[in-house]
């Protein structure tokens, strides 16, 4: 009998041990600030610089930076926030702009507004709608995903073109050059993952359009002229065999570094990856992002980019204060960010700094940072809304049908009705 009771007792202990973890008290005033971010060469480095800069004056704050893959961060946030427990969550988290609304709207009370810590007027305008919700500013805008067209000037020259031909150009012109370059060098124009429609996103944002209406909820696909034009151009490129397919990031970078392609339309954060191939120094240049032909559109767009968010957990005031003092006020910090990371912020007072005027030998002496900074100001403001990735998966599927010969309007109308069904 004794043994049985001992067994039951042990069982009870095990069970109670399982449940006792959740009942600990909330430490309201902590000096330990945890940060989650991805990409050690970019975001993590940027955060470390900010930490060093801030701790010079506020040494009592203990900032711990933890690297997680972006997908892991999304999963952990979703599982923790939906279960209602904030235990194990960091104070500050980096969220990609395309996803920000999805988090802010899905977990309304879990984020802490930073209105008191930063002034939204200081930041590039296009960042604000995605980082705010119901009139409150939740995100501290971080890096710019300002897009450019990276070009291999040596390939272009072989076909009789120069970088000047791509100033304020539209996509028709780009495709014309791409065809000529392919003729002359045998190199395809761009490389593309059929599942990743970043190129289309950049194209439509350059004319101020998005997958969704301005309300950020209603799908805007069937009557979206910019999207229609982007689809048409994409097919034109595929049909002319200008697109080299890849299926993951390393193949993408390999195509660039091996010199397989003549152009890379992408966000400025691709710069370090392009420069990784030192032997190509002097052979690259960056042209403004091409316009959509025949539609109101500018030579500027955006791809990716993210912002910092403060979670509604103990230590939030200090976390917000830290972000405000560094990313929201420190011009010197942004100079360092440019010099040491090569990154571009969206804090506008920083753009006048000296570091932005540096000439880059890799890009034939072009002042790429000041160019990018200038383009950042022109990026049309759109509301990324809730459903970027749902709709993108629908479009990635539908665009295959269009490439296989189906009628464009039918394909887009189909995508519209699918999106209305799924995105709610």
């Amino acid at each position, binding site marked *: 009998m004794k043994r049985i009771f001992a067994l039951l007792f042990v*069982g009870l202990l095990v069970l109670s041990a399982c449940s006792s973890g959740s009942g600990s008290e909330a430490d309201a005033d902590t000096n330990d600030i945890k940060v989650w971010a991805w990409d050690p060469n970019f975001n993590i480095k940027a955060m470390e610089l900010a930490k060093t800069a801030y701790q010079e004056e506020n040494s009592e704050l203990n900032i711990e930076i933890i690297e997680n893959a972006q997908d892991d961060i*999304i999963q952990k946030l979703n599982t923790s926030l939906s279960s209602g427990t904030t235990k194990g969550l960091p104070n500050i988290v980096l969220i990609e702009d395309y996803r920000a609304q999805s988090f802010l709207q899905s977990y309304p009370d879990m984020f802490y507004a930073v209105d008191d810590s930063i002034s939204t007027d200081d930041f590039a305008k296009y960042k604000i709608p995605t980082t705010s919700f119901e009139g409150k500013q939740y995100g501290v805008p971080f890096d710019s995903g300002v897009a450019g067209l990276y070009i291999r000037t040596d390939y272009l020259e072989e076909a009789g073109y120069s970088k000047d031909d791509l100033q304020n150009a539209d996509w028709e012109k780009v495709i014309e050059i791409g065809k000529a370059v392919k003729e002359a060098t045998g190199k395809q124009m761009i490389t593309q993952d059929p599942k990743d429609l970043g190129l289309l996103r950049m194209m439509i944002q350059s004319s101020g359009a998005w997958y969704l209406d301005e309300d950020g909820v209603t799908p805007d696909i069937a009557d979206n002229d910019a999207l229609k034009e982007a689809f048409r151009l994409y097919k034109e490129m595929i049909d002319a065999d200008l697109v080299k397919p890849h299926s993951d990031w390393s193949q993408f970078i390999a195509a660039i570094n091996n010199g397989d392609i003549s152009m890379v339309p992408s966000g400025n954060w691709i710069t370090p990856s392009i420069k990784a191939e030192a032997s190509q120094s002097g052979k690259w240049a960056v042209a403004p992002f091409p316009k959509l032909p025949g539609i109101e559109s500018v030579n500027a767009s955006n791809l990716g980019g993210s912002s910092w968010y403060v979670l509604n957990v103990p230590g939030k005031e200090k976390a917000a204060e830290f972000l405000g003092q560094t990313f929201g006020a420190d011009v010197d910090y942004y100079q360092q960010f440019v010099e040491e990371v090569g990154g571009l912020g969206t804090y506008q007072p920083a753009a006048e700094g000296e570091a932005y005027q540096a000439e880059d030998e890799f890009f034939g002496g072009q002042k790429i940072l000041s160019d990018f900074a200038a383009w950042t100001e022109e990026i049309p403001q759109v509301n990324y809304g809730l459903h970027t990735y749902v709709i993108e998966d629908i479009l990635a599927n539908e665009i295959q049908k269009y490439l296989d010969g189906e009628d464009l309007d039918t394909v887009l109308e189909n995508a519209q009705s699918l999106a209305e*069904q799924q995105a709610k």
Partner: protein
Amino acid sequence: MNIPDKLGPEKLAKKPAPRPARSLRLKNTMVGWSFVTLASLLIGIFYFFPMVQALILSFQSGSGVNLSFVGFENYIRLFQDPVFLTTVKNTVIYLIIQVPVMILLALFLSVVLNNKTLKWKGFFRTAIFLPCVTSLVAYSVVFKYLFAPDGIVNMTLMKINLVSEPIQWLTDPFWAKITIILAITWRWTGYNMIFYLSALQNVDRSIYEAAKIDGASAIQQFFKITIPMLKPIILFTSITSTIGTLQLFDEVMNITAGGPGNATMTISQYIYNLSFKYTPDFGYAATVSYAIVILIVIFSIIQFKAAGDKK
């Protein structure tokens, strides 16, 4: 679990003194229940409670924590959701092509490796079983590189002049499915083979000898003796393989990420996308999970019926 119960009354009833028998019976029952209680409690808390919770969740919808009850709307949405239907179609394609191919291959290999005169048996068995100990993610990543446009598979095919330009193993809707099927076949054939091998060891050699004396050919022996003898094991492996295929996730996620378009996406990956890639709708994701449960039940019933056994 019910051994003490059964032993108790029958054996002890014959004993003359009722008092000690009663207390002994009580004691035995207590011992039995104390074992069962703990296990059932744990199973209840960690299996059935979440299952019921998920069922309740599947009648709710909304983004993140803003869930509200919608009745059967999720289940209606399921049948109108072309992505879900595509993922079911893909999964069924994997199932009806991959599972039979793998099981036949595993049967064939196990019979070959069961041959008494074969040398290096241990080596071959280990070699074929080895894929099963590799991590799902690790082997998926390796396959992704093998089948890349400039990967070793394409290079080899081109060098021996079988194809003139690289096959788009990962970005063409048809070939991407082939790649996934090849990958899971490589990973799981050895696993099933081991079951057949161990079953074959239990088949009496004299049956084969008798068959040989009667003049049965090797093929006849295979179909008339080996297959019937292995029938319960074949049923078992085909059911576990079916369940495994219906839950397929790691390979597709890592090799093609469901692409191109939705051409290789599985049901499990769709659940992942609904919860983590898109604006999270855990309610609808739970509904899709229950769809898998129902599919597994249906397929298992079909297989039991097809095998035609009382088991």
